[in-house]
């Protein structure tokens, strides 16, 4: 029988450097070897079994990054139960929203018990009372005393864990992963970095343990290799981003991943003084995934931290999603990453990726970036200026720079398809489907969603992109998903937040996010149709009221807000609002209220389509097509 994560844990702890290094706010490290993790997990498994928790049952876990998370998580696994890691509450923030979200996640996952940090527990009362897990909510210390459990050996088809692909109050998607999938992903990732004499890889991470990038990407490979994993709590990173970079340097981590926002935060919040004596030359793979990769941020990060030994070749844009257990494509580990320029019009209008101005390709963090001096202010200006500078040049005026996220990992295949599911040739923009050894079993409690996402062994990622030279370039999203700071949100929760405001046409708002060219991160836009009966006062107050309502309900700050005339937003024939079409229209400058059809308008429309036809003919001639 193939190995599972349980086998890794039972085997790990033989090497002296195998274990967790937990770094706190004073930068003190606590060591917890894999052997200790195993002993504590077996004790938890014994307590759970004593309570009556059985094989295959779901065990929700709400812990900050720390030893207890691991005892609870692996305790559930060693019992053959299925851990479901959930978000702990955010500091100073919105407990009501947290309670609603946690209640939904508990009921969707069907958890029979919640294991929680003793301090977090008091906030869970309401959620637990509403979801009513059979064995309630307990701190680890409150589990019944029992002999350690005999570890269960799960079958490859058994569920290994459930992770939520978006933290949402409206439609939480509970991604169910089998032991087979988790093991396949872990072995694939681990295989990318073979140890060799004189080089023992280790990873440092501040990523939350309730998400695939932190858990499957960092914890499981370290366990499989019996290696060190240096961990910082995510809230510590956000408060003091420099601690991440200092930890990498101090403990010689070779691999450390983060979403685009993490790199961006370092540019704005790390001071030169924080970096005194830090040596980042050990850092070979600065993986960048989980949200769209901004070329400007890559360049600025490489330029800024080169001074502290960071190799520009370390930056590695990657692509993955929780439905594939994490990674799908990786940039070449031996080469610097790169971006290419494509003709903007052809991309936007025809869905054709036509490379522009051969030689306009730039090495991210290479020569172009290395000239930027290494202080925060200048690096930040550079981050903002890359897009603007690019647009100023005549060749770049018509081009769009896109970062390559690399080639499929071993065992994975990519297919770019049109809306009817037919495969498109290279350099055509379409919907990205992937197949591989670590796809999810499905969404718990959502057979329709599962059937939409999984078809004949392929996963519809909902992302848009194209292949060029076998490498993947992402251009946007077809699925309705808001990604802000590496976290996914459902647009519905943003839209519902403004639904009841005076002056809003109920049910007629659209929230979308995307990565604008040259920007450091995704931008959240909210389009709201005003009610026909809105008063002037209501309209004047509407933008502020909408921003407030969204922040209060979701914790997201709206970057752009448009109040539109009734009937402006694009709808399907059945009257459903179309989010991706809204964004497309907005970016094309075409989000206008419907106007009565007149002879003049009709003539204009025909002229426009005549132009499009001429352009299309021209493009085909260029390619030597009839």
């Amino acid at each position, binding site marked *: 029988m193939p190995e599972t994560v349980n086998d890794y844990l039972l085997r790990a702890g033989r090497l002296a450097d195998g274990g967790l290094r937990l770094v706190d706010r004073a930068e003190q490290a606590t060591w917890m070897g894999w052997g200790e993790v195993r002993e504590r997990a077996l004790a938890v498994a014994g307590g759970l079994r004593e309570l009556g928790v059985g094989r295959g049952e779901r065990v929700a876990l709400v812990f900050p990054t720390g030893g207890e998370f691991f005892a609870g998580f692996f305790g559930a696994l060693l019992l053959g139960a299925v851990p479901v890691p959930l978000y702990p509450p955010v*500091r*100073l923030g919105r407990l009501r929203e947290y309670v609603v979200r946690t209640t939904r996640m508990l009921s969707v996952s069907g958890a029979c018990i919640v294991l929680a940090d003793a301090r977090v527990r008091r906030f869970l009362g309401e959620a637990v009372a509403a979801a009513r897990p059979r064995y309630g909510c307990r701190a680890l210390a409150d589990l019944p005393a029992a002999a350690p459990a005999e570890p269960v050996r799960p079958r490859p088809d058994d569920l290994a864990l459930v992770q939520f692909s978006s933290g949402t109050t409206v439609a939480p998607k509970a991604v169910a992963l089998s032991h087979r999938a988790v093991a396949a992903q872990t072995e694939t990732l681990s295989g990318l970095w073979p140890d060799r004499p004189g080089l023992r890889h280790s990873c440092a991470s501040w990523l939350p343990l309730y998400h695939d990038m932190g858990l499957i990407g960092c914890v499981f490979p370290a366990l499989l290799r019996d290696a060190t994993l240096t961990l910082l709590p995510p809230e510590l990173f956000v408060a003091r981003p420099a601690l991440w970079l200092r930890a990498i340097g101090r403990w010689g981590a070779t691999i450390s991943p983060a979403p685009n926002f993490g790199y961006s935060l370092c540019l704005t919040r790390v001071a030169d003084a924080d970096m005194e004596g830090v040596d980042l030359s050990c850092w070979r793979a600065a993986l960048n995934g989980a949200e769209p990769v901004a070329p400007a941020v890559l360049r600025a990060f490489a330029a800024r931290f080169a001074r502290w030994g960071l190799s520009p070749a370390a930056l590695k844009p990657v692509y993955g999603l929780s439905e594939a257990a994490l990674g799908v494509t990786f940039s070449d580990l031996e080469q610097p990453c790169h971006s290419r320029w494509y003709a903007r019009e052809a991309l936007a209008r025809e869905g054709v990726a036509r490379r522009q101005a051969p030689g306009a390709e730039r090495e991210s963090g290479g020569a172009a970036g290395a000239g930027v001096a290494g202080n925060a202010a200048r690096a930040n200006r550079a981050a903002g200026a890359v897009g603007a500078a690019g647009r100023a040049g005549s060749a770049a005026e018509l081009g769009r720079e896109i970062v390559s996220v690399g080639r499929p990992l071993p065992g994975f295949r990519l297919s770019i398809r049109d809306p009817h599911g037919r495969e498109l040739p290279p350099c055509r923009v379409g919907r990205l489907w992937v197949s591989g050894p670590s796809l999810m079993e499905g969404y718990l409690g959502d057979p329709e969603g599962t059937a939409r996402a999984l078809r004949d062994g392929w996963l519809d990622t909902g992302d848009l992109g194209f292949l060029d030279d076998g490498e993947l370039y992402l251009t946007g999203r077809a699925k309705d998903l808001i990604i802000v700071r590496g976290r996914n949100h459902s647009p519905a929760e943003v839209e519902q937040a403004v639904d009841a405001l005076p002056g809003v046409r109920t049910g007629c708002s659209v929230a979308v996010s995307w990565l604008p060219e040259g920007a450091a991160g995704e931008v959240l836009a909210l389009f709201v149709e005003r009610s026909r009966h809105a008063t002037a006062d209501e309209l004047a107050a509407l933008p502020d009221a909408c921003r407030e309502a969204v922040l209060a309900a979701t914790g997201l700050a709206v970057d752009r807000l448009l109040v539109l005339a009734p009937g402006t937003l694009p709808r399907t024939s059945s009257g459903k609002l179309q989010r991706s079409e809204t964004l497309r229209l907005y970016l094309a400058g075409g989000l206008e209220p419907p106007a009565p059809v007149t002879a003049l308008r009709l003539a204009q429309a025909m002229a426009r389509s005549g132009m499009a036809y001429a352009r299309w003919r021209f493009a085909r001639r260029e390619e030597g097509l009839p």
Partner: protein
Amino acid sequence: MGTDILSGIAEVARQHLGWEGPLTADMRLVEDLRLDSVRLLTLAAEVENRFRVRLDESDEAAIVTVGDLVETVRRKLA
């Protein structure tokens, strides 16, 4: 002392959150200061640094406004 704390928090908001307007005790952190989760974390951390106090979860549940935060810091310093 309360006004010292308030002006200290205003200083943190200016320096680390880019808040340019006046800061008053009745302002709500989320709705009025428009702080999302990352900025709330930043505020908590920088307030701790500035006043050399440690806010813990049980304090934080009750903090909705700037005034609540001032009061919590005042209690910690007492």
